[in-house]
């Protein structure tokens, strides 16, 4: 009788292990399915001109489809727009985020720090579409028009909490002896932070910045109401501008351009995944 019970319990135990393995393995399915679909449908669109030419007009695309040709043009306007906006956002968000993170790490007990820390969580959890409409109210309305500036402000707001968190966390896990050794040598706190702590934390902060970029580079919703989009290559920062995710959204909504979805998605997906893997690899390397 007891023997039977043992058998039953061991069977349950084994069943649980297999269920866990099965369901854990199943979560890999969407990743493979998404990668597979985007890869299979998008790889033949990737060509030199895909990266150097702007989006075709719907009319040109329609003509090409009628003639049975591949759709001409590419996503160069989106790539350039993404780079401009991301660059402007990062130039402001990275130093501000690092300084703010340093403030939190230096004054962990202060009430103000706790407020800032809470607000960082709040902003990080705010849906991106809300960042979009707020930036619209802040920037687009007063400037009387969509612009690259507005888009980069939205991306800045999204990046900021990510940079703050990674800086703060990296600085906090540095051994305190590092800071004390610097201070003992007679350096002031600014120099210790600049010459000792931040260089020691470089790896963690850099990884955090990479992850922040990979997080915001695919953001669509906040750009829809700020950068709007633009069908030609443009470098002006006070005019509407395109971005890769915005282009995907446009292609999705325009029956004539639908074929271009996959090339653009493949580019974006690979970029994001490689950025992620690099960050993960660097984090591991620097942790050792």
């Amino acid at each position: 009788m007891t023997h039977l019970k043992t058998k039953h319990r061991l069977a349950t135990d084994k069943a649980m292990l297999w269920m866990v393995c099965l369901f854990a393995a199943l979560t890999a399915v969407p990743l493979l399915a998404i990668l597979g679909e985007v890869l299979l449908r998008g790889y033949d669109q990737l060509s030199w001109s895909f990266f150097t030419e702007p989006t075709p007009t719907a009319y040109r695309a329609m003509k090409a489809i009628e003639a049975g040709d591949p759709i001409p043009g590419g996503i160069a306007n989106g790539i350039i727009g993404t780079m401009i906006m991301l660059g402007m956002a990062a130039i402001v968000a990275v130093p501000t985020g690092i300084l703010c993170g340093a403030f939190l790490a230096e004054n962990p007990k202060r009430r103000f720090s706790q407020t800032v820390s809470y607000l960082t969580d709040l902003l990080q959890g705010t849906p991106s579409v809300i960042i979009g409409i707020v930036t619209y109210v802040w920037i687009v309305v007063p400037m009387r028009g969509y612009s690259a500036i507005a888009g980069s402000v939205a991306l800045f707001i999204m990046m900021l909490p990510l940079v703050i968190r990674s800086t703060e966390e990296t600085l906090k896990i540095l051994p305190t002896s590092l800071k004390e050794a610097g201070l003992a040598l007679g350096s002031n706190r600014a120099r210790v932070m600049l010459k000792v702590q931040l260089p020691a934390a470089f790896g963690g902060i850099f990884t955090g910045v990479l992850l922040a970029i990979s997080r915001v580079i695919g953001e669509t919703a906040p750009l829809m109401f700020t950068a709007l989009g633009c069908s030609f290559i443009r470098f002006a920062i006070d005019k509407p501008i395109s971005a890769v995710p915005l282009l995907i959204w446009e292609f999705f909504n325009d029956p004539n351009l639908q074929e271009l979805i996959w090339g653009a998605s493949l580019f974006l997906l690979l970029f994001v995944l490689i950025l992620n893997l690099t960050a993960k690899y660097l984090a591991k390397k620097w942790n050792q």
Partner: protein
Amino acid sequence: MNDKLYKAILFIAAMVMPIVCGGVVYALVTDAHSAFEHFGFLRFLTSSEWSYTEGAEQYGALPFITGTLMTTALALVFCIPFSLPVALFVGEYFKGTKVASVLGTVTDLLAGIPSIIYGLWGFYTLRPLIMALGISSQGSGILTASVVLAIMIVPYAASLSAEFIKMVPNDLKEGAYSLGATRAEVIRKVVYPVAGSGIFSSYVLAIGRALGETMTVTMLIGNTNNIPESITSTGNSMASIIANQFGEASDLRFSSLIAIGLVLFLITAIINMIGKMMIKRARIS
């Protein structure tokens, strides 16, 4: 640079946070004001009318609040059977092994995929599948959006839960084994109860993410402005109605959309705050 200047610079950088957050709230509140004033706060939240015929404009947020709550709840239901095993796989069964780190990478990458690409996949792969299975004729709807939403939040719930499962002291597990328990019994009766509050809080944070997810839902929910009758019907979430209509809205509709944004902001802020507080408490104990 002297210490005073250094401290001042750090303080100014830190001030950016309250300014930005204050600005967000200020912008939402001022622009939502006219909608609340026109319809009344409670009536705005409980009215299910959304019509922009000129002269008879009527805006209420109820269909979208319902849509958001339905997609989020359903996504959570679909998420749990996958995120829990993943958390156990990474945090208990194969803790610290190569396979666990491979699965960890897989979930990290899943978390990194932009939501617009999830939307595309849902639209071109899942939607036809749902139509082929005869679940719904148009393919889009609450259910379709929720399934993809679930896939998107699995990584968050799983990695955070795994962290708490990992933290269950070995002393306790060995104590349970020494009494003759199997691994399944140890997990059910020791690991889950001990890591329970942490696991729960990780789902609260996953909910926080699902609530505001925009592009995926916009592409899959069907975009109709009525209260969804069942999980297979179409609808709109708070985020998707904004994504759909903000670009063309003005005046009262603009204000109503901002008001929906404010409500969404408040809901996610509260959920995230609860989640973070619970996590802090779970980490201490």
